[in-house]
């Protein structure tokens, strides 16, 4: 289907829970202590954007709850997790919270028009950087949409397999743990706690026995790093992680599973499986090839 559009705006009628403008992330500023950020579930951001002809990483809305919006243009094309919808003038589009995944992605044809800050368009709330005024969306917010041409739309779907084990690589600090610590990590069924957000996820389950004390020195961190504080319960770092941290890293979630892990809601189970570097790299190449190629906007005939 091809639909003529003008840019217009999207107005927030109501919102429940956090909702942020996010994109594919901003690399290159970790030495400013700015994490790369990016969508919690990158493949779902990609499905949503690409289903309506956007570059995979165009700014979209990442929803942790629900939202209602209406478009002010004569016709507005949106996509919810890869399902396109065409909105007439003033037509309200309501998104209910998901019971299956932690976050949903609402993209608009052209992408949301927010200022580019430090190489990206996403929101980092700790310093009110980027996105829509550096904060979660509120009722009455008016979101500009970038101008765009005619385009084809199609349904796209990124599956997440809620019961699959999350793949990890042994971490650089594994020697700071008892010899059976990796067995603990891969043999335990953990539960995602409610203390879970874009910064990181705390997991519940039997504690790991640390063999050394926290010494306060900090080391560089990355998304997916599994830190274990002295009290023994793991923390898995999310997209807005602090760029340094003081707890030993027992393992790191492979990049191909960042989205699958982040999609797990509080109360969900998580099991980890240790893999080798060659498998982790192959999985990333496959996922990136499928979803994260640099794309120009495709205009329909």
């Amino acid at each position, binding site marked *: 289907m091809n639909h003529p559009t003008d840019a217009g705006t999207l107005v927030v009628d109501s919102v429940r829970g956090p909702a942020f403008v996010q994109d594919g992330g901003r*690399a*290159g*500023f*970790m*030495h*400013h*202590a*700015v994490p*790369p950020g990016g969508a919690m579930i990158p493949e779902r951001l990609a499905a949503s954007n690409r289903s309506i002809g956007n570059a995979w990483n165009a700014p979209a809305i990442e929803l942790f709850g629900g939202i209602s919006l209406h478009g002010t243009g004569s016709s507005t094309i949106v996509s919810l997790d890869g399902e396109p919808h065409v909105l007439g003038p003033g037509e309200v589009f309501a998104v209910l919270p998901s019971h299956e995944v932690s976050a949903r992605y609402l993209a608009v044809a052209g992408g949301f028009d927010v200022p580019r*800050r*430090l190489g990206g368009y996403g929101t*980092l709330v*700790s*310093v*009110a*950087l*980027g996105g829509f005024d*550096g904060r979660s969306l509120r009722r009455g917010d008016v979101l500009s949409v970038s101008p765009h041409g005619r385009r084809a739309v199609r349904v796209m779907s990124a599956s997440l397999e809620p019961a699959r084990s999350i793949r990890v*690589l042994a*971490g*650089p600090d594994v020697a700071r743990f008892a010899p059976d610590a990796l067995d603990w990590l891969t043999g335990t069924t953990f539960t995602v706690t409610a203390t879970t957000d874009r910064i990181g996820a705390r997991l519940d389950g039997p504690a790991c026995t640390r063999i050394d004390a926290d010494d*306060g*020195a*900090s*080391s*560089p961190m*990355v*998304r*997916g*790093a599994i830190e274990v504080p002295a009290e023994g319960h793991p923390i898995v770092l999310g997209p807005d992680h*602090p*760029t*340094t*941290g003081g707890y030993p*890293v027992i393992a*790191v*979630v*492979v*990049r191909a599973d960042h989205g699958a892990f982040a999609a797990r809601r509080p109360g969900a189970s998580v099991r980890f499986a240790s893999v080798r*570097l060659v498998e*982790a*790299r192959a999985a*990333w*190449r496959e996922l990136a090839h499928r979803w994260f190629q640099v794309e120009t906007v495709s205009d329909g005939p």
Partner: protein
Amino acid sequence: MITRRHSRSEPAGRSSEVSWRCELRPLGDGALRFSVPSGVDARVLLDALRATPGVLDAVVTERHASVCFDEAVPDLEAVIAATVSAGRPPEGRLHTIRVRYDGLDLDAIAEVTGLGRAGVIAVHTGVVYTVRSLGFMPGFAYLGDLPTALRLPRRASPRARVPAGSVAIAGSRTAVYPAESPGGWHVMGLALDFVAFDSTRGATLQLGERVRFEAAP
């Protein structure tokens, strides 16, 4: 510690000694972490890592450094070895930060150290600090070294909210909080007319730069 000179023409077998001595290890499948060799200047290392082909991001902390990449794994052997024999860089830019010394923990610090308020301020303003690392939150620069007379362990319980601009100390480090944040450091005062993090330029204090504090009247 690498004690002999290393050149690009050396065979791969010898250059792997850099990996071993620096404990170069994967940090997930998109990053590498290694120990910073002693004697290496942090800023020289950061600049060299960021200039290495394939490196998307680099972070240098006091103990470890890391690089992030996409597909091709960057070749760090020669880069790390070259920083060991590199000369000292020119002195980093000096920032002067005016502080109103009236923080929530100032009196407690004065008492525990036995220095009194005036003594605490005199010690804190009496040295030039160097940015040793950045981390914790955007623009947060760990400044060192705090004179021993002012070294205290972190607070037993962190505060839920430390005001933006707070000047604080813990251990051998001092810092300015770029934005309101939870914090476990002892708050000495408030930085005046100082923006630690800006959304167009990023962190104001960069690795290797220098800072002195000045008491506002």
